[in-house]
């Protein structure tokens, strides 16, 4: 976090939070929600970028920024999972299509070779699909139908994460409006206290020559 306040007083502090303060806050917010194999640096990147863009002005905003980063991270993770899942089970969709185009045994062997990315198998699959008037889209559609429950579940989780992120952004907006009003009132108070009535001084008479 670039800026922070020691409390939610109506004006932000101009200095950064001290290291022990930051460490304490990180403990209160919990560790980053990383799963096995996930990169800390990859998580820190959106944290730094979002913190830099939002510039949290008080502890509430720090909490929200952390929430937004966690939710963005979760949505990204789930999107990656969806894409990887489709890729890793594409051979199952292909196998089902090939079973209709050739012998069962041959379909198993060709699918295994295709999954191992053997050039000859890939070319043979393309030929077979083309001869049946199909493309890889048909394979992906079959794969989707095989994994529809999983994909739907992942989509719902993504929608939940995005919905929560949007709700937090709205709260951040509302909070900043309130904070802005407080700040404006405080500034006005300071300015009014500082304004001095300047008494008009009589103009000097020109001395007659």
């Amino acid at each position: 976090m670039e800026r922070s306040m020691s409390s939610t007083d109506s004006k932000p502090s101009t200095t950064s939070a001290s290291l022990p303060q930051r460490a304490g806050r990180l403990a209160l917010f919990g560790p980053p929600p990383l799963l096995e194999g996930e990169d800390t640096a990859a998580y820190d990147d959106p944290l730094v970028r979002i913190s830099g863009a939002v510039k949290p002005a008080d502890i509430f905003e720090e909490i929200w920024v952390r929430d937004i980063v966690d939710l963005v991270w979760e949505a990204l993770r789930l999107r990656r999972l969806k894409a990887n899942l489709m890729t890793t089970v594409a051979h199952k969709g292909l196998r089902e299509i090939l079973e209709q185009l050739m012998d069962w045994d041959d379909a198993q062997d060709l699918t295994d070779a295709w999954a191992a990315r053997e050039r000859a198998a890939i070319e043979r699959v393309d030929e077979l699909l083309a001869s049946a008037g199909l493309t890889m889209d048909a394979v992906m559609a079959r794969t989707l139908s095989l994994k529809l429950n999983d994909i739907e579940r992942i989509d719902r989780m993504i929608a939940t994460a995005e919905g929560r992120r949007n709700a937090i952004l709205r709260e951040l907006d509302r909070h900043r409006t309130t904070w802005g009003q407080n700040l404006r009132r405080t500034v006005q108070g300071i300015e009014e206290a500082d304004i001095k009535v300047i008494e008009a001084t009589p103009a000097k008479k020109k001395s007659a020559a």
Partner: protein
Amino acid sequence: VISAGKINANRANARASAGPKTAQGRAHSARNARRHGLSLPVLADSGLSEEVEALAGEIAGASATPETLELARRVAEAQIDLRRVRSARHDLVSSALCDRDYESPAAKRKKAKLAVAAAKLGARLELSPHLRPLISQLLSGLKSSVPSSPEGPQKFAIVLSDMTRQLAALDRYERRALSRRKFAIRAFDVARREAASAAD
């Protein structure tokens, strides 16, 4: 409807049971009904209560009135509760993903069924030696169809599928904590605005 005789017999049997004897066993059985402990309020845990107080103090600031501190405490309580729920969800998914031998209940059931079928075929092998080649082929087919432990995205998808109910329950806890935090922050903001107006 259970008969009175059966109820009496159950009660008599239960009275005859000595229950867990060792301290470890008693401690374990004391936690039988506990699933995640999230229905308990945060303040019921002394460690978390301290964290709530620390966060409330930081939110309210040094010159806080008792009213402001109370409002800050509500925010802090919701925030710590939220952290607790998220941590429980993370631990649930993470422990399953880290388990190298993770198997879904469905895969376990399938394996058990296949083992029974293989045992039956094996028994046939002894009785009908002339069917040996066919049965051997079937046995090897059965063994190869036993699902291996999933990995990568498939494992993640299976874990999410297996834990749908737990994750949905944790999601409800999270939604409630988020709502509590939102209204607590709004109340804190209103109080702060009113305090600023009064000071003017």
